[in-house]
Each structure stands twice: as structure tokens, then as C-alpha cells.
């Protein structure tokens, strides 16, 4: 975790927020290539590195198709842009926090798409989360699918912990109307019906990160 460097920086009036985007951390993917036996392992940056032919060895991914649930209108790049716009905003962004002003630690950002049902189920079972924050998340009305930007830092993430969320309606458009709730370490940003912002000062500490977004061995491949 210590070797990971900044993905990008967001400038604002109080300096800049250095962000490590979880999507930029190099990972290996299991792929199916008709020219090879199934389940080859490869990275996103060099997907054809296992080819012997030098012409095919350096192929790059330029486009890909991801089937999403039919009501999911907000795609990943737009959801990410919306989250970053919130984070760098001078009034509701990350820079309003003392956590940002006191220490200049990197902000680790993990953006994922999930159903509100799974998310709330995970919140309910999160033993490290304060009861107050649990109540807020569980009682907040959310659409069927949400983009969750999980906020953490290097030291917390190595303990599989996070300290905040930005929850975005994945069935909405790419405007502030889709931002559902912002949970920062010291502040909750509640957006009321008139789209006005209310800051509630809370100290909910850190909580476990969201694991098992997809089915797998952990649930015996059952829903």
C-alpha cells in the first residue's frame, strides 16, 4: 500500500487534494480469449501480454461494453466526474474538513456500483459503524442502484477501513440532483427536498469497507 502513488490531484481554494483512485491500482483480470485456453490472467494495461507474436503482444483496450441494469443511466466515467466535482467544491468538498486542513494524507477513493439493498445489508452487518450513522444510511431513501464512492486513506485502507461515503443515484442523470448523501469523517451533508445543504457535525469514526459486492466462493455463489 505504501508504494502506491497519487492518481491525480484536485485543486481548490485551500490547496489541493491528492487522490489515490482504487481503479488505477494495477490488478490482474481473468479473461476469455478464443485463441487461448480459458481463464488467462492479464492486466488492463497490457491485455495481450501472454501472446508470443510481437505484433499482438502490445494490444491496448480502446473500448469495452459493460451490460448494466436497464435503469442504470449514470455510467462510470460520469459518476466519477460527479464525485470528483463534489470533492473539490469549496463549500461541500473534502477541503471543508479539519482532516484535510490538519494532515495532508492522500485520499483513497473507491467507486463502485451496487444495489441499495446490498449496500444497506452490508451497513447493517458492519460491526465497526456507529449506530447513528447506520440509522441514517438505513433510513435514507435510495434508488435500486447506487454508485458508492468510499473514502479512506492509506493507513485505514490497509486495515480494510473507510471513513466516508458519497452516495450517488445510478438511475439518475449526471447532475447534483443525483447526489443522495455525503458522509465525511466529521460532517454529514444532508441534502433536503429543496436541494439545500445541511451540515451536521458528527464523529462517527471509521468503519469496515464494503466487501463482497459480487457473488463468489464467500457466499457459495448464491444470492
Amino acid at each position: 500500500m505504501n508504494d502506491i502513488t497519487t492518481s491525480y490531484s484536485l485543486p481548490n481554494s485551500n490547496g489541493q487534494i491528492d487522490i489515490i483512485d482504487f481503479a488505477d491500482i494495477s490488478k490482474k483480470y481473468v479473461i476469455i480469449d478464443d485463441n487461448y485456453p480459458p481463464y488467462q490472467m492479464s492486466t488492463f494495461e497490457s491485455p495481450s501480454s501472454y501472446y508470443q507474436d510481437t505484433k499482438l503482444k502490445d494490444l491496448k483496450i480502446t473500448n469495452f461494453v459493460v451490460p448494466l441494469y436497464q435503469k442504470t443511466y449514470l455510467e462510470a466515467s460520469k459518476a466519477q466526474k460527479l464525485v470528483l466535482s463534489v470533492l473539490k467544491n469549496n463549500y461541500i468538498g473534502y477541503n471543508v474538513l479539519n482532516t484535510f486542513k490538519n494532515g495532508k494524507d492522500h485520499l483513497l477513493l473507491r467507486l463502485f456500483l451496487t444495489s441499495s439493498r446490498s449496500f444497506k445489508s452490508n451497513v447493517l452487518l458492519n460491526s465497526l459503524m456507529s449506530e447513528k450513522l447506520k440509522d441514517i444510511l438505513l433510513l435514507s431513501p435510495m434508488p435500486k442502484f447506487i454508485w458508492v464512492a468510499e473514502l479512506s486513506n492509506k493507513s485505514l485502507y490497509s486495515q480494510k477501513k473507510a471513513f466516508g461515503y458519497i452516495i450517488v443515484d445510478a438511475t439518475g442523470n449526471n447532475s447534483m440532483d443525483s447526489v443522495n448523501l455525503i458522509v465525511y469523517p466529521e460532517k454529514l451533508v444532508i441534502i433536503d427536498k429543496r436541494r439545500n445543504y445541511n451540515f451536521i457535525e458528527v464523529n462517527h469514526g471509521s468503519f469496515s469497507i464494503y466487501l463482497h459486492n459480487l457473488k463468489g466462493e464467500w457466499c457459495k455463489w448464491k444470492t
Partner: protein
Amino acid sequence: MENIIKSGLADLFSELEANEKVTKLSSEESQKINCEINTEMESFNIVFKEHQIKSQISASRTFLTF
């Protein structure tokens, strides 16, 4: 059911407002934030569309070459 959830949330916020420090932004300030971010998102849409077209051309070329 929805009403129960809404009233539960309202009760919770009233409790938080009574016990915690709450700062409310005026509707003008809130509108300013919304406008700022929405304008940023609109300009991103234009860049995104251009990028999509460029990627499609590049992807088609890659496909034909392949």
C-alpha cells in the same frame, strides 16, 4: 411503509438537530453549489462526447487492422 421510513428519518434528523451542531446553507448558497457543479458536468459531457467519437474511430481502426 414509505411513510414509516420517512417519519423515522425525520425523527432522526430532528434528534440530530437537537443534539449536534447543524449548519444550514441558504437556498441561494445551495443553488450556487448546484449550479457550479452542474456547469462543470455539462462541460464534461461535451468533452466526453468528443472523446467517445475519437475512441470509436480508433477502435474501428484497430478492429480493421486486426
